[in-house]
């Protein structure tokens, strides 16, 4: 570990940082911090490792079972994918439009509606669960993927995040674009979306993950086992059930890969999220 200044450009960016501690204390604290970091990282990551180890503890046979011979979990995975992808893509689509209005279009009652979005976003899902159950019955959506997808599309989270992100788009840019074309939709598609790309991706990944892990909603809103998303099916596996471990591995592989791939965007988006 090199600490001399200038060697990596690490200290160039934050000139104030090296003044935080001086002299011998620096090494001791650094060592302590390193140890702590490693411990904490292990603490965080341990479940993943345990699952992976157990899943492979019987070789590849459980995975063959997972795909071919016992496709129960595979079906669950497919259901989860369908539901989560549809809901997350849908919500991004709808919310980008809404965010544009919230961020750039002034109208009476804008704040009120926006605060309404925030409030609903903060409510624990039980508050909305009964209403959603009623709605799903009313619209004949009960026990169909639609019961999960449709509300998922209109969850206010993405709209909120995208609004925050969109506020940072300079108005002049939009005005300039408006001179080229009067159509707002084209402005959104060609100018705004590329500018906000990281935020949009962040919103999509987070919405996908939220939908992927949802447990309570499917229990209430669905009935037949074949349609269950994997999140629920995994509840029932036992520690000795290696197939279950394999399924669990596959299960968290999806959001993990997604998140890994889009790591930078998500970090950036979360930064905007905090600028509430």
């Amino acid at each position, binding site marked *: 570990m090199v600490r001399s200044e200038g060697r990596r450009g690490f200290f160039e960016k934050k000139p104030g940082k090296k003044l935080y501690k001086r002299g011998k204390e620096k090494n001791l604290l650094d060592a302590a911090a390193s140890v702590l970091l490693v411990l904490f990282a292990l603490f965080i990551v341990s479940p993943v490792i345990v699952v992976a180890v157990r899943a492979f503890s019987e070789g590849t046979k459980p995975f063959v079972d997972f*795909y*071919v011979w016992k*496709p129960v979990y*595979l*079906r669950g*995975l*497919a259901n989860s994918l369908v539901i989560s992808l549809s809901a997350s893509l849908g919500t991004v689509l709808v919310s980008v439009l809404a965010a544009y209005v919230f961020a750039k279009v002034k109208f009476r009652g804008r704040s009120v509606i926006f605060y309404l979005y925030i409030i609903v976003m903060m409510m624990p899902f039980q508050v909305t669960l009964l209403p959603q159950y009623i709605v799903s019955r009313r619209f004949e959506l009960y026990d169909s993927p639609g019961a999960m997808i449709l509300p998922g599309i209109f969850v206010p989270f993405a709209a909120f995040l995208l609004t925050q992100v969109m506020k940072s788009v300079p108005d002049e840019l939009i005005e300039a674009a408006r001179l080229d074309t009067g159509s707002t939709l084209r402005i959104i598609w060609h100018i705004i979306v590329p500018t906000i790309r990281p935020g949009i991706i962040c919103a999509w990944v987070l919405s996908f993950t939220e939908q992927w892990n949802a447990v309570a909603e499917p229990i209430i809103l669905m009935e037949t086992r074949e349609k269950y998303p994997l999140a629920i099916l995994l509840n029932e596996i036992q520690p000795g059930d290696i197939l279950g471990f394999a399924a669990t591995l596959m299960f968290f*592989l999806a959001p993990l*890969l997604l998140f890994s*791939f889009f790591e930078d965007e998500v970090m950036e988006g979360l930064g905007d999220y905090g600028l509430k």
Partner: protein
Amino acid sequence: MKIKRIVTITFFLLFLASVAVFVFFGPQIRAALSPEVTYDYPNFAEAGGRMLNVLPSSAVWTGEDGGTYVWKISRSDEFPEPAFVVNACPLAIEKEKDGKVYFGFSYGSIDSSDAVAVGWDTDLKEGMCVRPER
């Protein structure tokens, strides 16, 4: 493009592809992996005034514990498509003659409505999927 991005996007697409392939082509894959098995139903025969079931000797095999078994073929509802599995079923042979075995009716054993495997190429295991042919 950074290496990490390429790697993770590849894995993710593989992931999606694997799910899609095995969901849509699962039945075909399972069928291809299931050994073909010839089957038949037990016949009736009269011997010494009693009614006995008859099966070809090829259907009978000896288990590790020394007992005699046949493979009973039954439908499985574990899969979205119709499928068949084999289960080992004990058999109490009364007599063997001319390449056929004769056995009586007993609870828990084969009766005339059960399909039994009479010929197979690869080793069969308990609970394995098969493709029955006449």
